[in-house]
């Protein structure tokens, strides 16, 4: 199929970017979206032009590296997939596809379609961990019984790959789905209780410092999340934060 691509090109963080038009022929439905961009880049390189920079790593939907706002939606029009898992069969011959970086003040553009998502790392570093004795006396995690429901909920929250689609989809560029998933995966488990009070406060504080927006409960993040992280996590974070703050 033949596609008309409108791609955000930006030399670096300090240079203003713009949309550049490309026409790409010979795209097959079995290609992934990133393979389609690979082909475009091969063409650009063979013509002596600068290739389009975009983030990618595992290309099997588990690493959270790929991003892209495709036709106005993070990871494109398909549900529960990352951009690397998006197939070109979701598009039709002659389609125009607008490809932009994830947009948020806290995710500044580095180049073309690559944004700096280290704000997520800093939120995680602020409290997304448990302190475990690793000096040889480590207790087997399975030694503490955990009921099935909590274990499942914690696992569901832990499947967040930190790609940033929630921020990209949110009209307020809010990072509450990400932060709440990282709070929840520990809040639900006994191992997470020791630091529970400081964790939620520190992670929310860091989230605010990074300049993410607030949550309006539109639910856009949940719909666009490639891992199906639920809004119940945001409610849990709100609950945890309220009780942590009241405890002082």
């Amino acid at each position, binding site marked *: 199929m033949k596609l008309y691509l409108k791609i955000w090109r930006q030399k670096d963080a300090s240079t203003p970017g713009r949309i550049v038009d490309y026409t790409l022929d010979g795209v097959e439905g079995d290609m992934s979206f990133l393979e389609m961009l690979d082909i475009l880049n091969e063409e650009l390189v063979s013509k002596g032009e600068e290739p389009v920079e975009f983030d990618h790593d595992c290309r099997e939907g588990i690493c959270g590296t790929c991003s892209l706002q495709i036709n*106005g939606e993070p990871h494109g029009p398909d549900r529960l997939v990352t951009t690397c898992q998006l197939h070109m069969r979701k598009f039709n011959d002659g389609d125009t596809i607008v490809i932009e970086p994830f*947009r948020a003040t806290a995710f500044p553009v580095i180049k073309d379609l690559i944004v700096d998502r280290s704000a997520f790392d800093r939120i995680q570093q602020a409290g997304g961990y448990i302190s475990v004795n690793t000096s040889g006396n480590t207790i087997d995690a399975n030694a503490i019984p955990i009921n099935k429901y909590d274990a499942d909920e914690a696992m569901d929250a832990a499947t967040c790959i930190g790609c940033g689609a929630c921020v990209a989809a949110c009209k307020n*560029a809010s990072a509450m789905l990400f932060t709440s998933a990282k709070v929840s995966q520990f809040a639900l488990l006994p191992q997470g209780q020791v630091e529970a009070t400081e964790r939620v406060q520190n992670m*929310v504080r860091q989230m605010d410092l990074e300049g993410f*927006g607030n949550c309006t409960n*539109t639910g856009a993040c949940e719909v666009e999340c490639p891992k199906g992280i639920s809004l119940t996590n945001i409610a849990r*974070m*709100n*609950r945890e934060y309220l009780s942590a*703050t009241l405890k002082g």
Partner: protein
Amino acid sequence: MSLIKSSLARKYVMALSGLFLVTFLILHVTINLASVFSPDFFNEASHFMGYNPIVQFLMQPILIAGVIVHFVMGFVLEVRNRKARDVGYVKYKGSANAPWVSRNMIYSGLVVLAFLALHFYDFWIHEMAYKYVEANPEDPTRYYYETVEKFAPFWRTILYVVSFVLLSLHLWHGFASSFQSMGANNKYTAGFTKFAKIFAVVVPLAFAFIAIYHHLNPITH
């Protein structure tokens, strides 16, 4: 202090002030419905509300403060949220993942706020002037006539009805959303959300019915 400054605290303030205003709507619509079904009771209730010192000097200021807090915090959040995305998308398909009402609370809220200005002009300022400026004697029978007469002009009735539609949209998202903001998302959520949606339709519909009813049934004397 951290609670006051944090983004989550702003959510709590929006949710709690919104819930407080919802409870006021229940009282307001109940008394107003009496103007259709029992003018005498409407006069009695309105007179009580107008002259009871607790209502006048404690509850009324709290209510006005509730409106101000909800509006100011909503505006602060809107400004902060816009700053959180300094460069916008060339193409943003908001309708693909969220309902229109949830994405436009600021606009439905601003219409409701503009309506409140008209509503204050129509009733509250008149009431304050009647009681405290002109110092008229108490008249427990005037409220029904004053209310019905207000809806004689077609334009005012239409403005009220349009505002109630926007109020309905605002409540449709806001009411159910307030419990999520306060951290409640459990087995009761589905039932509560259903109740909140019904409330968001029924209460504004009742207000619109009252306005239209009085417009169509003017007092002839």
